[in-house]
């Protein structure tokens, strides 16, 4: 008899969640917009593990895992959903999940969740989660009736470097808001703590974005440092080489999507060799057909390559259309890593910085540690002499130019991950590229490196102060002045004049 009873209870327990979920789903489906919001808030206040599945599918606009997409969500509902979901997750056994939930609630917890948080905070065993919950709680306790509670909360907030904490604490400074003198002073001290933390975050952020911009400039300019810096070809079609690289990335992405959807995660890696090959191929073709006839006449190369760039742009426009094409970041390149509460470093940019440095290193090795590099340097320094020594100048020129363009292609792959991919992509980088090469000193790879990062950081330091436009103008003015002092650029060889 008790056995049966147990069974019955057991069945009930097993069956209950489904009952609950089903009914919730119906409630939600039948509710009006406002009722839905209310419903979600209730769920957030009294979580129930059984709703996990339902909330999950609601986020995708379905009433159940296998239901069709019928719900129309808006940001308000999405926010509440996330919130409800977080509080459900607090019940999870996995400390990691609980931690994320707690961190979410730090920012978004509603007063109605106060009780819930208090319970979990008390019950929580895991250190990290406990602390996180403490902060989340503190945010709500700032308006608690009991001054001592508020005081504790204020002190606790001092620990966090969360930008939200600053605004919350600032609010407490007015006597009108916070009656208790002690709490106010505590708020002041905590505020100072928080602001110190935030300042560090901001400075790091600026430095990083400077480096990131620098790496972009470097990738854009590196190829030019060879075609222009070494071969002396004023390659106005350089930007279009970047563009070709970006479009090859797009092509690879399409192909992978179609034939190997599994490998989509890694299409940028596949794109690298392709982009290099495409750009280098086009580059060599141009070198053989056009530029070969123009060595020693740099200014003519300017005009010819200008014509080439016009043709390439229009060709791409006719093939792929004038609109931008979609190049999606794969999972490992999207999102970012939260270093500090107010500092997120996007993966794509981190990777690009590394990539830029690698490419620069490889180029340097190629030019200084290989036979080809030796030949290139020989030919670029004294064509006739090299020819006499049996260096096949023609082939070397072709390979060198191809190399330059190929590197530009690699740059294009990187650019496609952070910017737009359209026919005019190259145009927006060409001037900066030339400035980098000239500033670094023509023919000086190391110079280009320093110039690129220098410009990037300078730009990013100026931008917050005087805005993007004035910043750029000021940079240009500085470059012009700088060239006055060092007409051959940062790393000019002694006594050698390039013109």
């Amino acid at each position, binding site marked *: 008899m008790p056995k049966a009873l147990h069974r019955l209870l057991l069945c009930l327990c097993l069956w209950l969640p489904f009952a609950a979920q089903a009914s919730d789903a119906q409630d939600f489906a039948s509710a009006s917009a406002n009722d839905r919001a209310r419903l979600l808030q209730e769920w957030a206040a009294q979580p129930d593990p059984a709703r996990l599945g339902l909330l999950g599918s609601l986020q995708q606009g379905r009433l159940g895992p296998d239901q069709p997409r019928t719900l129309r969500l808006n940001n*308000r509902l999405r926010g509440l959903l*996330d919130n409800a979901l977080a509080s459900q997750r607090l019940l999870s056994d996995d400390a990691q999940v609980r931690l994320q939930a707690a961190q979410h609630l730090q920012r978004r917890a509603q007063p109605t969740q106060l009780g819930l948080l208090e319970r979990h905070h008390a019950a929580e065993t895991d250190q990290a989660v406990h602390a996180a919950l403490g902060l989340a709680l503190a945010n709500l306790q700032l308006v608690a009736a009991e001054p001592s509670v508020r005081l504790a909360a204020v002190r606790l907030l001092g620990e966090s470097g969360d930008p939200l904490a*600053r605004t919350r604490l600032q609010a407490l400074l007015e006597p009108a808001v916070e009656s208790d003198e002690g709490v106010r002073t505590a708020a002041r001290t905590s505020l100072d703590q928080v602001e110190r933390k935030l300042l560090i975050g901001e400075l790091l952020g600026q430095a990083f974005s400077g480096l990131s911009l620098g790496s972009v400039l470097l990738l854009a300019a590196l190829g030019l440092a060879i075609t222009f810096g070494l071969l002396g070809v004023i390659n106005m079609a350089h930007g279009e080489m970047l563009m070709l690289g970006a479009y090859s990335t797009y092509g690879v992405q399409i192909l992978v999507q179609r034939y190997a959807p599994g490998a989509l995660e890694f299409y940028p890696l596949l794109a690298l060799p392709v982009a290099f090959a495409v750009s280098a191929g086009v580059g060599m073709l141009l070198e053989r057909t056009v530029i070969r006839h123009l060595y020693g006449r740099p200014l003519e190369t300017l005009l010819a390559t200008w014509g080439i760039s016009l043709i390439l742009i229009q060709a791409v426009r006719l093939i792929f259309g004038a609109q*931008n094409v*979609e190049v999606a970041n794969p999972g490992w390149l999207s999102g970012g890593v939260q270093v500090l509460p107010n500092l997120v470093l996007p993966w794509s940019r981190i990777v690009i910085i590394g990539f830029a440095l690698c490419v620069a290193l490889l180029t340097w090795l190629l030019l200084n540690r290989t036979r080809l590099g030796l030949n290139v340097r020989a030919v670029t320094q004294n064509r006739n002499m090299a020819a006499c020594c049996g260096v096949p100048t023609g082939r070397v020129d072709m390979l060198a130019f191809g190399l330059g363009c190929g590197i530009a292609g690699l740059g294009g792959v990187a650019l496609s991950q952070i910017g737009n*991919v359209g026919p005019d992509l190259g145009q927006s980088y060409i001037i900066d590229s030339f400035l980098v090469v000239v500033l670094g000193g023509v023919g000086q790879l190391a110079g280009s490196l320093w110039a690129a990062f220098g410009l990037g950081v300078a730009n990013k330091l100026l931008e*917050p102060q005087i805005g993007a436009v004035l910043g750029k103008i000021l940079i240009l003015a500085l470059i012009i002045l700088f060239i006055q002092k060092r007409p051959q650029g940062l790393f000019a060889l002694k006594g050698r004049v390039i013109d």
Partner: protein
Amino acid sequence: MKRRSLIKAFTLSASIAALGLTWTVQAAETIKVGILHSLSGTMAISETSLKDVALMTIDQINAKGGVNGKLLEPVVVDPASNWPLFAEKGRQLLTQDKVAVVFGCWTSVSRKSVLPVFEELNGLLFYPVQYEGEEMSPNVFYTGAAPNQQAIPAVEYLMSEDGGGARRFFLLGTDYVYPRTTNKILRAFLHSKGVADKDIEEVYTPFGHADYQTIVANIKKFSAGGKTAVVSTVNGDSNVPFYKELANQGLKATEVPVMAFSVGEEELRGIDTKPLVGHLAAWNYFESLDNPVNQKFVADWKAYAKAKGLPGADKAVTNDPMEATYVGMHLWAQAAQKAGSTDVDKVREALAGQSFEAPSGFTLTMDKTNHHLHKPVMIGEIQDDGQFDVVWQTEAPLRAQPWSPFIPGNEQRPQHAVKGQ
């Protein structure tokens, strides 16, 4: 010897020039329709599809027998995103090709560049893009939105409960007259709603700005101060880096929604929208609208793109300016039919109050006096498939207010079109 060669060269150049001037002289039983959209240069990204949709509409009208028994003959020119060239080409269309009407321009500057030409030669221009207002020419019909048909409802929505009840506004735009004027109007409007200046941040970036790290960081900082929304008038190309930066720095629509006025289906084609779900755009038309007229419009367009083998035809989308071009051309055809002629003055008269059942699902009417179309306002949410999902819309089309009441000095502006305003 030398003499001959010199003369040869001279005559050659002369003949080329002559050819250029007499190129498009053709049979006269047709009505010539000028299409003045950049097919090269920076604006080609937006304008090429308008050229194509115009050609499609002309085909459709011709298929129905044309206007007044005459077929329409498109004259396509490429002003190459070069503003002086717009004026030159405009003059050429009106004086050399003697077109009855011109559909064209995207940027305000191109419109301002051709405006004097059209007023001088009494031409007729249909301008299909949302713009800053502050203009009302008898020679132009504006089928795009005026600020009160796009910006203000959008901000009202952002402040509403469903919109997330934003209390702080980050006005981000490319530095040209449309964002400037729009933001000026918005600021005045927000003041009227009791939003203080410290809760409004106004930031401008140069054209083709590609590095939004600092700005997104600032948005984050600003948003810590309370419920924030971004109102973006960032222009075409810069949107991709902007949205990518938003996504990668983890700024979600649930925390800081971005309301864009210049981002439509075409622009989204260049972006992976999965991380952007929930960000907003305000237009008077979306491709995703579910009504028979629109279904036909979209189907026709996709078919046309395939048939003509346009690049990226498989992903062809429609957007607001395309709809505006489509509507504008039909309105003009109806008016010309009604007037029984293509004479500009007659057509202008006939156009007043002319109405057309538009893909937006409403019957749009050309205002009797101010040359602007009455348009419904819709707020769309970006979906992960690159389309918009309409989350809010007006019950009826709104009348345009080209002279915004929020800009001082506009009270005494005339409410009907006069030259040289």
